[in-house]
């Protein structure tokens, strides 16, 4: 054995890695090049900014009631005023302020519920796909059981049992919508399980947790990110539905679903009370879905570019 572990070669140790074009730059160019993704990302960016800056953008306290100025129409109506640009609800609360704070609720639920379901679904899917056999059968059984349950009904039942709160809605949705993560993670893992680089990792003595987390997960992340965006939109819609049915986020939290629900008695005479939160909800879900579809397209392109080396 002629070499130690650290041959004294100072000339090769300098860390000046010269990378020709920064990867994020190329990524950005491709995002802008994809029209749907660009529109979706811009729209989503606006909504996220609005949610983050709600305390500064909102003209009023979203909880402050003023029964003297109930159901003022938005500014484009003859009787509207800039005092309340989007009008007020039946309790005289400023609609624009509630809409801005409502974006926070929707996004928080979308992100948290999708993250929780992603954690559950990916873990189960990767374990089932990697180990196969009995573990796969057991997890597939849980998965089919889960798929047999109607999400909205189970969510309604459980939320009336557990009581309504933001935390409960997130937990409920997180534990109910992990199925797509599991299905995708399982099938992608099955494709990669016998890849030669996994065998090569075993051949350098890597442990199973190491192989799953470091070797496998980065290679299935692309597929999972697409699912993540779609499930985020799914969770936001489910929350709105639950809130509309009165078993989601409890009032007076400004949730968009709740705003639609509270406005439904007035919808024939003051249609804007449901149109405004409805449009906001549709825009957010559309934006997230556009981003998700765009990411999926970019993934497919990626696969074509250096797909030959992948499998």
């Amino acid at each position: 054995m002629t070499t130690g572990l650290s041959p004294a070669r100072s000339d090769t140790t300098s860390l000046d890695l010269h990378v020709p074009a920064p990867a994020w730059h190329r990524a950005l160019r491709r995002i802008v090049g994809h029209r749907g993704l660009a529109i979706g990302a811009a729209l989503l960016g606006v909504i996220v900014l609005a949610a983050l800056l709600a305390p500064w953008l909102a003209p009023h306290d979203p909880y402050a009631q003023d029964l003297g100025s109930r159901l003022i129409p938005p500014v484009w109506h003859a009787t509207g005023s800039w005092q309340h640009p989007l009008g007020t609800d039946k309790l005289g609360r400023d609609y624009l302020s509630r809409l801005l704070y409502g974006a926070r609720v929707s996004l928080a639920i979308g992100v948290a519920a999708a993250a929780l379901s992603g954690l559950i679904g990916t873990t189960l899917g990767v374990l089932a796909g990697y180990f196969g056999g009995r573990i796969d059968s057991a997890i597939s059984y849980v998965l089919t059981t889960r798929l047999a349950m109607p999400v909205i009904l189970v969510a309604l039942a459980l939320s009336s049992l557990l009581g309504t709160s933001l935390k409960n809605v997130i937990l409920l949705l997180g534990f109910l919508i992990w199925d797509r993560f599991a299905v995708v993670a399982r099938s992608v893992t099955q494709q990669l399980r016998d890849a030669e680089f996994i065998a090569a990792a075993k051949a350098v003595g890597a442990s199973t947790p190491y192989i799953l987390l470091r070797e496998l997960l980065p290679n299935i992340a692309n597929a999972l990110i697409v699912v993540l965006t779609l499930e985020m939109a799914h969770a936001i819609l489910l929350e709105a539905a639950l809130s509309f049915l009165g078993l989601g986020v409890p009032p007076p939290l400004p949730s968009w679903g709740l705003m639609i629900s509270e406005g439904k008695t007035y919808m024939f005479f003051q249609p804007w009370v449901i149109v405004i939160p409805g449009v906001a909800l549709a825009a957010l879900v559309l934006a997230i879905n556009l981003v998700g579809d765009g990411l999926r397209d970019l993934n497919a392109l990626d696969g074509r570019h250096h797909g030959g080396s992948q499998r």
Partner: protein
Amino acid sequence: MSALLEVEQLQVELPTPNGPLRAVRGIDIEVERGEMLCLVGESGCGKSMTSLALMGLLPRRATRTAKRLRLDGQDLAALRDRDMAKLRGNRIAMIFQEPMTSLNPSHTLGSQLVEALHQHRNVTRAQARDRAVYLLERTGMTNAAQRLGQYPHQLSGGLRQRVMIAMALMCEPDLIIADEPTTALDVTIQAQILRMLRELQQEFGTAVLFITHDLGVVARIADRVAVMYAGQIVETAPVRTLFAQPAHPYTRGLLNCIPVRGRQQPGAHLTAIPGVVPSLLGELAGCAFANRCAHAHDACTQTPPYPEIEAGHRVRCVLAAGEPAMPTETLR
């Protein structure tokens, strides 16, 4: 001192719907320290299963049995999975056939090389990096330090195989199992890689079990050769002896299949061994090669002996055992 790797009666069985497939049928191998042993055979003869069995990386449904399976005196068959994982990469490393797919596409070369060392050694990142750069340079890669930040898809097949070789050498293993490491490469690159591998092997004193189907490669790098047929080793000899005095009809057949200028008429058909490899399902009675052998006779239905006909030269054939005298016209 006993050999570095001692394998006696290694068997691998795979269950199939048509009964067990006996891919490896009791092979004996010894690899000395610092030696290059070539395991030669055609596709499907059990070469790769042998290498996976030695690494403990067989598919889960496969079963491995061995009378003796020792690395440096340590019984590998008795090791638990966790302890075997500690040996892999550390004492035994492996180089795979497909350099295009055996690197993880999501990590840089640097991180993969560094991790190979970090699995087994408590060294700083900088030390591991230095070792990676040093080994990459030794495999003939230029700008090794810059390339550490690159991803596998940015490299050619030849460069990737150099990375795989450097990765195998990261922990200074005693034994490297190389499963057709040059088969997927261009002939010109193949020659470079073989020369480099031979040089590094001799310099570091690493033993290599080199698996190939290519006798041209064998002639170039081997110290000793073991010829495998239908899950068994049919002949083993030092490389010179094997090429000068091949004793098993199968080995001679293989050597005859190499086209040599002057021996064949231009435009004539290339020589081939008639017949096909027997199915490895179930038992094989007698000599596995008998149905393709020009010299087969009644005695071949019995299990052939495996005599040592001269020092280090063993042949699994009744003809080699002495009588009747081997017809000589098939010798080159």
